[in-house]
């Protein structure tokens, strides 16, 4: 099973070796897609976790117990369809299939589950129709 998450660390937990535990104690494969940690602020990390459902469930329990917040990734890149003019400029810089064009309607399709939040599309969109929440 594969899960993409945003893990938020309150300042007191910045030192917690989360990835170490996830790998060692819960047998998970951890792929860190992005991480930001600033002194005295919340740290945030976007990860892809891979492993058995049982192990994943236990890992979630562990994160909750120590006080880490783990949210599904979807909220990270926000797409504003009302701002989008469907030019498709963003599709050329998207490294995954998260941004594609419907060949019939020529409208943009944003598939959040394919997004790895590389943020390439932000600079490419002239209408601020995709923004980062990170």
């Amino acid at each position: 099973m594969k899960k993409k998450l945003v893990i938020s660390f309150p300042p007191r937990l910045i030192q917690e070796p989360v990835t170490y535990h996830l790998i060692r104690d819960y047998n998970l494969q951890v792929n860190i897609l992005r991480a930001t940690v600033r002194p005295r602020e919340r740290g945030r990390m976007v990860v892809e976790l891979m492993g058995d459902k049982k192990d994943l469930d236990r890992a979630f329990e562990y994160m909750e117990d120590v006080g880490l917040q783990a949210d599904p990734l979807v909220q990270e890149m926000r797409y504003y369809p009302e701002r989008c003019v469907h030019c498709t400029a963003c599709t050329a810089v998207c490294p995954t299939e998260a941004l594609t064009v419907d060949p019939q309607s020529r409208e943009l399709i944003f598939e959040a589950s394919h997004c790895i939040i590389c943020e390439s599309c932000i600079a490419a969109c002239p209408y601020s129709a995709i923004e980062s929440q990170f």
Partner: protein
Amino acid sequence: MTRTIEEINAKIKAGKVVVYTAEEVIGLVREKGVSQAAREVDVVTTGTFGPMCSSGAYFNIKQSTPKIKCGGGRVTFNGVPVYAGWAAADLYLGCSALPDEDPRNAVYPGLFKYGGAHIIEDLLSGRKVKLVAQAYGTDCYPRKEYTTELGLEDFNNAVLFNPRNGYQLYNVAVNLSERTIYTYMGVLRPRLGNANYSTAGALSPLLKDPELRTVGLGSRVFLGGAEGYVVWPGTQHVPSPPRAENGLPLTPSATLALIGDLKQMSPRFLRAASFTGYGATLAVGLGLPIPVLDEQVMAQAAISDEEITYPIIDYSEAYPLARPGDLGRVSMAELMSGQIEVSGKKVPTGCLASRARAREVALELKQRIKDGRFHLTQPVAPLPGAELA
């Protein structure tokens, strides 16, 4: 078969006009042939929606009491400088104008989140803008400073006036260098990372009448959601470009200067855009009706995405330094597939003009003609290099 504008307008009035969009007509011609299609269809509507930097609007403000002479003074709308080199109350706002305090590319790449185009979009969306005027004061216009908030309805006149729109054919931009570049053709990644194009292809106004046989000075067009007019050839208009056999130009060529009442326009068809590292610009929705005056008009209006080809240009060196460089040509159909081949490499494509919104323009214009809300005009003069049908 021939047909006149008067005949078409009579049919519009009678509610009997037959209108196809420039996309729809391709299938019709394939099915029935040029002659039959020309007999059946009176008008073909085109559309495009994309960034056109040579756009802006002029305004006339109501006088304050005491009166003020803006001409020769300094005026801003929401901090964006407006040209005030005219009479007391006339102002011109270019879509790429920026507030003085915008860092531009000093913080590279600049974001250009607010400029002249955004003022236009704010006004069209019903928001007020703050006008600040400083003048030197005269005996007849003594006031030296004036600050007020204005909505679109508060201006005596608000007129969209674009010196260059609707470029006939445009380059496909790539980047051969080792670093990402930020251009008016969007973000171009290094080593042929992507290829960007900006055209409505088979819907594009001037590509569907490539020899400009039905459009000229005085032509009524769909502009920004309202009626507009072709007032002059656009700046940089190329009268005699090299052409392919089907009449299509091989390089960027014809352009149009357009005018229309901003107060009648809609933010759906005029949108502010911010090109990272390049600047602010206005995306303009433009549609031309093509009267089917003879079979040649129909044959050219039915040109398809497969037949329209564009030159591929390197924007890291060839374009900025005006150096020759031949990376070949590519068709609209290939561009729309999402991937093209350049120098043996597969390159993902992205567009800056919206085909979806261009289609909406063409359909909207078609509807207005069918409803009798839009009549065609006979051009009063051809564009340079062209001969009217």
